């Protein structure tokens, strides 16, 4: 019975993961994705700097959250870092107060929930208050600056929640190491380079378990969002992005759909923030700064906002370039990248590549004459 249902289960899974709203609906894509995942798994083992790369993977979640909210639901939000920061601070406060494995695990959920709840509240007042288009952008941008101003003045001892001092611009140090599980059942502490792995040829290699956690989470969220945007609900989001009034007149509750997407986006940004704080065991208000608030918009624009794949690959790529360059030069390069992508490739790089590839495929199948390919004629 199991054997008989296996092919149909794979087909069903593929049907859920594929659809008109995502790039990569072919066996070739899934093979390529599997290769990339294998490469990412092998990367730290063969000597890559997994510790730095885990940051890019964590920020990939933040990019995905904006891709859902902006690329699919059409709501340009500069506020993803608000939910990111609130997730991070919530994780910090809860884990410092309850530094047991169960407490820290709970802090992860608390951080995600906090991001989602704040997004739901802000979204409720915006969408049901009739705020649309550029005004949503302005409100979300202002809310990051409000958060920055607020968190920056929390240096005093009165800004202490339990035993966690918010610390103003000095930030909140001494966040305990990420530990998942429940005491007495199973616990795992994510200590950097704590895992020793014997690899043939290379010998014993120390690897970072946090890197694999962030890779697994990012992959799961990417696949989960693929399912979401290709569901009926995802198609409604795309319809709202394309024409809000038309969609309303097909009987859809546009405000509710936008609120649900915004809330999910808030939760994802919160998750990203939790992992960010857990990775750095530290968080400060710089995550609410204008520069950081614009980064998700840059990643998603460059990669292609209407594509989850574009958002996540551009986040990793842009962050890699940005942090490798560092300083003023990074600012200039990121700004130039944004300008060039808007002027030359407004749809983003990944959709453009996908277009080229599918054009190529069409050309191949359209050619009916058995002409020798040009490569073969060359000596």
């Amino acid at each position: 019975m199991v054997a008989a249902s296996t092919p149909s289960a794979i087909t069903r899974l593929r049907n859920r993961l594929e659809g008109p709203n995502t790039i990569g609906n072919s066996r070739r894509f899934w093979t390529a994705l599997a290769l990339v995942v294998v490469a990412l798994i092998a990367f730290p083992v063969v000597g890559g700097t997994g510790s730095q790369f885990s940051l890019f993977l964590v920020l990939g979640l933040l990019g995905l959250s904006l891709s859902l909210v902006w690329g699919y639901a059409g709501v340009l939000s500069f506020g993803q870092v608000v939910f990111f920061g609130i997730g991070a601070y919530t994780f910090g406060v809860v884990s410092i107060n309850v530094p047991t494995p169960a407490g820290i695990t709970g802090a992860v959920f608390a951080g995600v929930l906090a991001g989602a709840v704040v997004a739901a509240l802000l979204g409720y007042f915006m969408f049901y208050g009739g705020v649309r288009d550029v005004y949503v952008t302005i409100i979300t941008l202002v809310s990051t600056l409000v958060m920055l101003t607020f968190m920056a003045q929390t240096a005093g001892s009165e800004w202490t929640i339990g035993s966690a001092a918010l610390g103003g611009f000095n930030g909140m140090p001494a966040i305990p190491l990420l530990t998942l599980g429940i005491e007495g059942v199973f616990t795992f502490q994510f200590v950097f380079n704590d895992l020793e792995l014997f690899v043939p040829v290379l010998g014993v290699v120390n690897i970072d378990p946090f890197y694999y956690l962030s890779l697994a989470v990012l992959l799961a969220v990417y696949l989960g969002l693929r399912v979401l945007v290709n569901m009926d609900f995802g198609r409604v989001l795309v319809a709202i992005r394309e024409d809000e009034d038309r969609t309303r007149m097909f009987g859809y509750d546009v405000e509710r759909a936008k609120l649900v997407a915004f809330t999910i986006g808030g939760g994802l940004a919160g998750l990203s923030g939790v992992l960010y704080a857990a990775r750095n065991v530290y968080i400060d208000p710089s995550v609410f700064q204008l520069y950081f608030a614009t980064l998700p918009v840059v990643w998603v624009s460059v990669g292609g906002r209407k594509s989850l794949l574009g958002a996540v690959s551009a986040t990793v790529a842009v962050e890699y370039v940005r942090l490798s360059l560092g300083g003023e030069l990074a600012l200039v390069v990121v700004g130039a990248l944004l300008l060039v992508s808007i002027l030359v490739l407004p749809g983003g790089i990944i959709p453009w590549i996908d277009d080229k590839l599918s054009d190529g495929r069409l050309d191949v199948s359209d050619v009916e004459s058995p002409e020798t390919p040009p490569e073969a004629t060359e000596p």
Partner: protein
Amino acid sequence: MSESSDPASLGPNVRQTAAEMATGDRTETLLQTEDLVKTFGGFTATDSVDFAIEEGELRCLIGPNGAGKSTLLKLITGTLTPTDGAVYYNGHDITDLAPNKRVDRGISMKFQVPSVYGDLTVRENARLPIQQFADGAERRQLVRESIDAAGLSGYEQVEASTLSHGQQQQLEISMAASLEPDLLLLDEPVAGLSVDERAKIAERVTRLNEDEGIAFIVIEHDTDFVGEIADKVTVLDEGDVFREGSIEEIESDPAVKRIYLGEDDGGDE
């Protein structure tokens, strides 16, 4: 607010024409507006409009630019909220009902500018309204029928923005009709279409009206088209109902000609 459970007590009586009273047709009022006022700042777009149509009726709405036709339609769909007055649908006060809730009750609309989703394929367009109430094989069947009815078989995978203006109009009518409404509002469905395409839309509208019993309110300037499809014509002028009657009555009315042309042309065509 003042939703009553007794439909008979709601709204004023429907004015019936002499012909209807003579034939003794017993039709139910589907939609009725009562003293409907909409002002934008100092400008009065509709000025206490009393307008009613019956189940299964096909009504055309004509009038010069700025007469309040589109505003009236938007007040019926709920896109605009009236400054004063009420809208009754199937005997219920729907004045405060959100647009999407009105769609649930059976009011559907085709916008003036073809508003198909340009970036989506024809199939994805057709699927969107249907996915709300049908699943699996039934959904696929309805989507296919919807595309067929628009005359777009074979275009399923084509992006809607690449269709001609007429095809987009047909697709949007299909999408609006696939919700199986009782009342379908069309805002200038044949503007900018060729004679051929216009005839197709006329045939389509007539068929939906006669075979499926959908009532229509059609805003249209093209009097040939109006003559071809309408049971009855309402002329709006300066935000209020100016005349109501058959197309012949309206066409031969010198007062209508005057408001349309903005001057007395002495009845010369």
